[in-house]
């Protein structure tokens, strides 16, 4: 007997056949064993009875035992009288174990069809409707919770709110200031580069002021916050949901909206205007520096022009949008967080869609605000 690789020898015995298995029938040799067994299964119908002799098998595990059992089954199905012989006491219980295995149910694979695609489209449309209902539902729940907190101020979670404020506001300042500073520099440089052709260098200050205060400042910061804090909220709430922490909270008589979501929402609503303000200053500062060194507009001239070009309205328009956008980001993040199912994949999906939907709704809101302010003449 060669102990290197498993074998299955065929020995004629009277009008039957003996299949002598030898060597290690173990997982290590599974690919080889499968081939051997596949070949042997073709013997179906060649002989009236077949013995599978396993007395020479040096080592047997579940893989080997199953393949021998599979061989026996397919031979029997083919009308051959097949028996397993020479089983040692140690291995017989293992073979008994695999003998109980039922034929495997086939995996159902879904094929791509036109109805299937239409079905998908329909489901997505219904999904969009459900998303909007979910958002409105959450908005209502948050408003109701804030109402309750106003009536019973003692139930307000100050510590939690301050903690989240630190996370989403204080710790976000460096990156927000850096990015808006760079954007201010770029706007200024591009403006000067193109306006110079008409000798209108100084108007870059108008463009910078209006653009930064009205749109870019708040929009850019909101997008950054959606990516930075919205995703964090979804992941936090989602993993709490996965570990049944939210259920635990509920059974203790606490309202998850009040305990988890309200402090987060409030922190975001406070943070975004502050970040938008800081971002606007950083962008103006960056733009001013570039205008000075690249465009030759000295700081006095820049400030004088800025004072003429912008009014308090521009700033108000920008900053009014900030808390609304914060609320949108927060609600989207919390809805997605609570929608997480049990798997890690689901957590990833919902975190992604939290950021994507957050940014989408922020931009939609910005458009709505643009129409609104245009019609009231601000």
């Amino acid at each position: 007997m060669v102990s290197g690789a498993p074998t299955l020898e065929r020995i004629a015995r009277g009008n039957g056949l003996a299949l002598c298995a030898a060597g290690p029938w173990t997982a290590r040799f599974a690919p080889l064993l499968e081939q051997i067994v596949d070949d042997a299964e073709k013997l179906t119908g060649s002989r009236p009875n077949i013995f599978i002799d396993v007395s020479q098998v040096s080592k047997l595990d579940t893989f080997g035992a199953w393949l021998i059992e599979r061989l026996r089954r397919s031979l029997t199905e083919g009308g051959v009288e097949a028996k397993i012989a020479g089983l040692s006491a140690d291995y017989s219980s293992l073979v008994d174990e695999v003998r109980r295995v039922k034929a495997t149910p086939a995996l159902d694979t879904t094929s791509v069809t036109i109805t299937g695609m239409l079905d998908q489209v329909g489901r997505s449309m219904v999904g969009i409707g459900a998303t909007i209902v979910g958002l409105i539902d959450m908005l209502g729940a948050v408003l109701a919770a804030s109402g309750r907190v106003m009536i019973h101020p003692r139930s307000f979670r100050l510590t939690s709110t301050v903690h989240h404020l630190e996370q989403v506001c204080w710790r976000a300042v460096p990156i927000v200031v850096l990015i808006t500073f760079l954007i201010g520099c770029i706007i200024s440089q591009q403006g000067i580069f193109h306006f110079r052709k008409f000798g209108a260098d100084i108007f870059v200050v108008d463009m910078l002021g209006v653009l930064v205060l009205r749109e870019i400042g708040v929009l850019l910061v909101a997008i950054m916050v959606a990516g930075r804090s919205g995703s964090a909220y979804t992941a936090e709430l989602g993993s709490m949901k996965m570990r049944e922490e939210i259920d635990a909270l509920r059974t203790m008589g606490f309202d998850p909206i009040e305990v988890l979501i309200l402090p987060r929402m409030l922190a975001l609503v406070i943070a975004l205007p502050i970040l938008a303000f800081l971002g606007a200053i950083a962008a103006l500062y960056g733009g001013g520096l570039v205008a000075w060194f690249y465009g030759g507009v000295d700081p006095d001239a820049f400030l004088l022009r800025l004072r003429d070009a912008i009014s308090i309205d521009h700033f108000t328009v920008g900053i009014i949008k900030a808390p609304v956008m914060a609320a949108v980001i927060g609600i989207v993040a919390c809805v997605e967080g609570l929608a997480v199912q049990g798997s890690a994949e689901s957590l990833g999906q919902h975190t992604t869609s939290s950021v994507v939907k957050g940014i989408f709704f922020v931009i939609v809101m910005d458009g709505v605000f643009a129409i609104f302010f245009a019609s009231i003449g601000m």
Partner: protein
Amino acid sequence: MTFEIQNAIIRVRDVSVQFGSTKVLDGLDLDVKRGEILGFVGPSGAGKSVLTRTIIGLVPKISGRIEVFGIDLDSADAAARRGVERRWGILFQQGALFSSLTVRQNIQFPVREYLNVSQRLLDEIAVAKLGMVGLRPEVADRFPSELSGGMIKRVALARALALDPELVFLDEPTSGLDPIGAGDFDELVRTLQRTLGLTVFMVTHDLDSLYTACDRIAVLGNGKIIAAGSMADMQASQHPWLRAYFHGKRARAVMG
């Protein structure tokens, strides 16, 4: 105390593990014989799971030597390590099933990675393993989040056994199972040990398991093995913790 044993499948020598300033394991020696079921007990927080994780290589040790299958995992190259990892299976305390894969895919995962076999055999093996741990094939297409605690344990065991390992680490396998389920589990471990020649390293608190399934018991205390031997040795010991453990109210209930 030293425990020199011939033909040891796991050999732990003078191993120390430290977290911050707390020394969890302090010069620990332990041998596990080939083919035995070793029950590993000790007070909560004594470092049972830490030792398991140290042997597996998940927790770094500050000193000492660990050999598994005669291979020192610190000096082994990547290929040798992979070879060892293929030969052991681990049941984590919480199951640690891959949550985005179905039960079937969880069991097939190690097989698919290590062996180049057909999808048909993969499916059959998954169902066979499920059967061995006492689950019906219908469970195969569920996700881990849709399983009960006991089912998760069983699926995790099925995954640990997927490649027919020689050595299995079980971290509290029967905790969270009903007594009948736990009894079946012990019986299952016994059967597998008999049929597959499995060596089992079992961290447990379950006196029933210790009594019915284990060949030998090792007790961890103060970062060392304070006793190792058969159930009779444990009951005869005069160590206060052992006396409390093996002669307590619960122990009397088990041993009648």
